[in-house]
């Protein structure tokens, strides 16, 4: 299955982040069946909690396309033919960004109950241009197709490793315990049995919501 092939590459990126003591999230951007950009979380190194894997991959692409002389319209056309594979559900910020760029499709691994923007907390991928406020002259609200739960266990295993090694700089996201409502979240079950270790390393944090990124 094609999605698994690309998700494996995204997982490699997440492992790269893990080895660099970063929250293990990784992604690849694919155009015409080819990986054209990749990224991994760099929130610790940059001291900037917005430097998620998606943002890193997007910036690399924009730099490259601008050096090739692509203008805004051409860039928008390119993004409309790109798919993103990311190990964890894009957060509300990244999902908004992907919508702004007009990406075609997103595949993610595990869900993000705390601040997922593709179904968990908000559903920004379901944006539609029907309620265009300015009568068509203002392009806005682009949705994208979104599929979750691809190799979610592997993505979650990386989070678990991350916690075993400890988060040195204390930059956190958190992913909550398993929820009954979504099948894709079954992979989150680890948090319940993992919670005791998590509470040892960071006693002040709530036990049942495992702090992950």
């Amino acid at each position, binding site marked *: 299955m094609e999605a698994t092939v690309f998700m494996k590459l995204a997982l490699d990126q997440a492992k790269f982040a893990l080895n660099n003591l970063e929250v293990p999230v990784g992604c690849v951007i694919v155009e015409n069946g080819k990986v054209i950009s990749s990224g991994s979380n760099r929130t610790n190194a940059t001291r900037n909690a917005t430097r998620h894997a998606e943002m890193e991959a997007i910036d690399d692409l924009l730099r490259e396309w601008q050096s090739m002389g692509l203008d805004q319209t051409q860039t928008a056309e390119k993004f409309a033919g790109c798919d993103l594979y990311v190990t964890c559900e894009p957060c509300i910020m990244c999902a908004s960004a992907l919508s702004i760029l007009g990406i075609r499709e997103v595949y993610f691994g595990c869900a993000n109950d705390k*601040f997922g923007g593709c179904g968990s907390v908000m559903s920004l991928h379901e944006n539609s241009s029907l309620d265009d406020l*300015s009568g068509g002259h203002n392009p806005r609200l682009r949705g994208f197709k979104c599929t979750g739960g691809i190799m979610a266990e592997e993505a979650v295993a990386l989070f678990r490793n991350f916690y075993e090694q400890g988060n040195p700089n204390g930059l956190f996201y958190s992913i909550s315990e398993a929820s009954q409502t979504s099948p894709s979240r079954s992979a989150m079950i680890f948090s319940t049995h993992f919670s005791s270790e998590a509470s040892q390393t960071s006693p002040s944090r709530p036990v049942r919501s495992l702090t992950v990124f």
Partner: protein
Amino acid sequence: MAWELIEVAGNLTPFQHSTVDVVAAKIESKVANALIRQLNQVLPLENLRHVKRVRRRVDSGEKSELSIILCLSTGPENCRNGFPEDVQKLVDTYQLSPFIAKVSGYPAMSKEEWQEQCKLWPTSYHPPNEIDGVSGFKEEELPSIFDRMRTAIQLSEQVGNVAIIVDPSSMEIISKAKDKTHQHDASLRNTCARVEAENGCCLAEATEANDDGKLLLSSSHVNNGLNMEVSCMNSWGWMKRSSTEQKTLPSEDGFLWHPLRHAAMVAIENAAERDRILFRTSSSSTTEAKLNGDMENCSDNELAKRLKIDAKDKEQSENEECCSDLSGRNRPYLCTGFDIYLVWEPCTMCAMALVHQRFKRVFYAFPNPNDGALGTVHRLHGEKSLNHHYSVFRIKVPDQYLNGSSDCSEKASSEEAASVGFWFLVFTSLRTVTPVFGSPVI
């Protein structure tokens, strides 16, 4: 009309009536400590951490009556049998008579809600942004808060958004940024002029503050409520930009333009860069970024306080010797405890970025009817699942301040009438609060 600060409530339905049934029992005060210890060990209230284990009720000044939560209730029948084994042991040992009680299912988001919850069973309340015990603002802060917003509006020069990050404990400006979604300011201004001309709107020439400190802005800035040059207001507008601006060399960050570089995102990036430079560690010392700003009197431990980062100042290379001194000393965790001032209400992307970066308070002047995430279209700050919550305030800017320009006055007054409905709508969704003094001791 004076400057006014209005809190934008995160929650439109302040009182959560969702409750959970628990099994409780009256206990003697002399066994209370032993029982609390045992129960917290064998049956901690995992999902009800905001609920206090013990309730004390005072009967007409006589003596107090204590009740303790034994466990969650699984149904009406488990009052008789079907307790967990550990609980049953305690019930037998202490001869307890269990009863069902209701407790609030969620932690309180406001003091009012907390007071309401405590009528059921006592809970603990932690104001969402408690840094120094004050979740809102202090009365004496108001002049400086308004002053910051005045600065932001002046910087915005009627095109685009402006973000200013401030450390309220030292009043230090941490970073400033404008929208950087388009190429540069000059092209921006031309586009703006063209758009306004097409719309038949007069164009105010002066955007500088005049002698009275009043700002002369064109009527389009505020009264029609839509400023399409603001990135957060027109996030998808980047796609329609013309390609005639391509020739210039990329800016230092390597981008000619960037669809996601809204003012708040750029300000966060600048603040992070400042952090990396001020608190250089061995792992991050590879960053050869330059600090935009001046460093004066780099001589003692007070350096951090004196550093002034000002994007308008000339670029100067940093003094590494002094900076290395600061490593590990009071390094802020992201933007924890900081305020951000935005001329326009942020979009969902920017609002979530502010959550990630752990801001304490967000102030904005003008609502964003297209994609405002903090009160107008969404209320992100009221989203309970988020791992951090900031307070949001709207600063109401006096009309006189915004419409000081005489050549626009006619136009402005007619537009003002048309916009009354819009403003009314905005206001009905806002909640005026009184300033919070001191810390709620709970």
